C-alpha cells in the first residue's frame, strides 16, 4: 500500500513567481490496485508521480510505501517513463537486467531472469537486439520489463503510451492489464486519455490544474471485466463505459473552463 498524505509542492518559476503545483493531495493505492490519474497538462499528475518515485521532495505532507516514508528514489518503486530511458549501449536483455546488476546479481542469473520478463511482455526473441532497433511500442515493453526486474512493490507509469499510435496503444493497454493481472503489482498510471483511464483503472482520480488537486474519484470495474473475458471491444462498447466517459469529459471541460475564467 502506497499512501500519499496531504502532499503539497511549490516550485519557484523562472520569473520568480511561486507555482503551486500540488495542493494537499491525499491518495491511497491499495495492494493489487490499478490507480489512474487523469487530467489536462499542468494539473500536477507528473509532479505527484515524481514525488512518489522520490525524484522530487515535497514542500509539505508525506508519502509512505508499506509504512516506510519515501525519501528518495529506490528499487522498491519501478518507474516507466513517457520517453523510454533505455541505454543504447546495452542490448535489450541487458537493459532489462540493469536493476539486477545494480543489486549485485550474478550475470548468468540476471540475464536468465531478464529473459523471463521479456517473455512476459512478448519480446523473448528480441533480447539480443539494440534498443534503437525496436519500434516505440516494443521499447515501452522493454521499459515495463526493466521496471519489473527488481520486483518492486509498485509500478509508477508516467504517460507511457502517450507517444504511441492508437493501434499500438490499444495493444499495449491490453498487454499491461495482462502483466498487472499476472504479477499482482500495484500500479499508478498517468494519462490524459479518458478512454485509457476508464479501461485500465480499478480506481480513477481526476485532477485539475492550478493548484493541482484531485477533484473527483471513481471506483471502476471495466478492467476486471476485461481481464476475465479478454474482450476489449465489448468492455468499451458497454453503455456504462460510454456514459461514464461522457460524464468525465464534461467534468474535465468544466474544470478547464473554471480555470480559464479564474485567469
Amino acid at each position, binding site marked *: 500500500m502506497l499512501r500519499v498524505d496531504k502532499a503539497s509542492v511549490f516550485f519557484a518559476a523562472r520569473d520568480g513567481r511561486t507555482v503551486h503545483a500540488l495542493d494537499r493531495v491525499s491518495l491511497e493505492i491499495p495492494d493489487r490496485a490499478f490507480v489512474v490519474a487523469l487530467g489536462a497538462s499542468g494539473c500536477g499528475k507528473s509532479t505527484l508521480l515524481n514525488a512518489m518515485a522520490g525524484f522530487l521532495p515535497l514542500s509539505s505532507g508525506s508519502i509512505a510505501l508499506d509504512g516506510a516514508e519515501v525519501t528518495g528514489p529506490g528499487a522498491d518503486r519501478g518507474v516507466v517513463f513517457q520517453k523510454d530511458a533505455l541505454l543504447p549501449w546495452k542490448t535489450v536483455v541487458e537493459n532489462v537486467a*540493469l536493476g539486477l546488476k545494480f543489486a549485485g546479481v550474478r550475470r548468468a542469473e540476471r540475464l536468465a531472469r531478464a529473459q523471463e520478463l521479456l517473455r512476459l511482455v512478448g519480446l523473448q526473441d528480441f533480447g539480443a537486439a539494440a534498443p534503437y532497433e525496436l519500434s516505440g511500442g516494443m521499447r515501452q515493453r522493454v521499459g515495463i520489463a526493466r521496471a519489473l526486474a527488481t520486483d518492486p512493490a509498485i509500478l509508477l507509469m508516467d504517460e507511457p503510451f502517450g507517444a504511441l499510435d492508437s493501434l499500438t496503444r490499444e495493444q499495449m493497454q491490453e498487454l499491461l492489464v495482462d502483466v498487472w493481472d499476472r504479477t499482482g503489482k500495484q500500479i499508478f498510471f498517468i494519462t490524459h486519455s479518458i478512454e485509457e483511464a476508464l479501461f485500465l483503472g480499478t480506481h480513477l482520480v481526476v485532477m485539475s490544474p492550478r493548484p493541482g488537486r484531485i477533484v473527483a474519484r471513481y471506483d471502476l470495474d471495466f478492467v476486471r471485466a476485461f481481464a476475465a473475458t479478454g474482450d476489449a471491444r465489448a468492455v468499451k462498447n458497454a453503455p456504462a463505459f460510454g456514459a461514464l466517459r461522457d460524464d468525465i469529459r464534461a467534468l474535465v471541460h468544466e474544470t478547464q473552463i473554471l480555470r480559464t475564467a479564474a485567469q
Partner: protein
Amino acid sequence: MTSDVAATSAPAERAHESAPRLVKMRRFGAGEGSTLPISLASGAVILAAWWIVAELRIVPHLFLPTPAEVANAAVSIFQDGYANATLFEHVGASLLRIFAAAAIAIALGIPIGLLMGLNKWAKGVFDTPIEFYWPLPPLAYLPLMIIWLGIGETSKIVLLALAMFAPIVLSAQAGVRSVSQERVNAALSLGATRFQLMREIVLPSALPEILTGIRISLGVGWGTLVAAELIAATRGIGYLIMSASHFLATDVVFVGIGIIAACAFAFSFAMRLLEAWLVPWKGQN
C-alpha cells in the same frame, strides 16, 4: 491536333514504364550524398595548378618547387635521412611526443572534466585557470616553458599536453551535461548507487563527446608540434621543417608538411574507427 497530342504523349508513357523517375523530398543544405568525385577533382585541379605555376616559373623556383622535385626530395629523405637523422627517427620522435602528451592530457583531462560536469566546486575551481589559458596560442607561453622546464623533452611534451588538455576537459564536461535526467532517474529508481550511476550511465553517455574531444585535441597536438620542436630539438618533423627552412630547402619543407598532414589524417581516421567501435549507438536515439 488531337492525334498529335496522342503521338507525343505515347513515348513518354512508355519511358515511364521502363524506368520510373525516382523522386525525393527537396532538402536544404549540402545533404548527405558522397562528395568524393568532387573532392578528387578539386585535389587534381590544385595539383595541376601547382605544377603549371612551378613549371612555368610564374613564382621564383626558390619559393615553389615542382611536384616532381618534392617527390624526389621525399625519396631522398626516405633513403638517406635529413639533418643527421633518418626519416623514421624524425617521425618517431614526433610521434613519441604526441603520444606522451596525449596520454597526460587524457589521463588528467577526462577525470577533471567529468568532475567539473558533476560538481559545482570542481567547476568553480578549475574554470578560472582553464578559461584563462586555453584561448592563448601555445607559442605565447612557449618561452615560459623553456625558462621553467629547460630545453629538453619535458618542455616540449608539457607544451603539447597543455594545448591538448583543454579540448578534452571541455568535452568531458559537456558530455556529463548532455546526460539526460531521465536516464539518471531511471537508474536511480532501479537502485543504482552513486558509483554505479557514474560507471553505467554517466561515463558511457559522455563517451561520444569525450572521443570527439580527443579527436580535436590530436588535431591541436599536430598543430602545436612545430612550435614545440622549435625548442632546441635535434629530431622531429617540426625540426625537419624548421631546419630545411634555414637553408631555403623549400622542397624539404613541402615533404615535412606532407608527412604531418598524413600523420594527422591517419590519427583522425583511427579515431573515427575507434568511435565506430566504441559508440556504435552515436546518432541513434
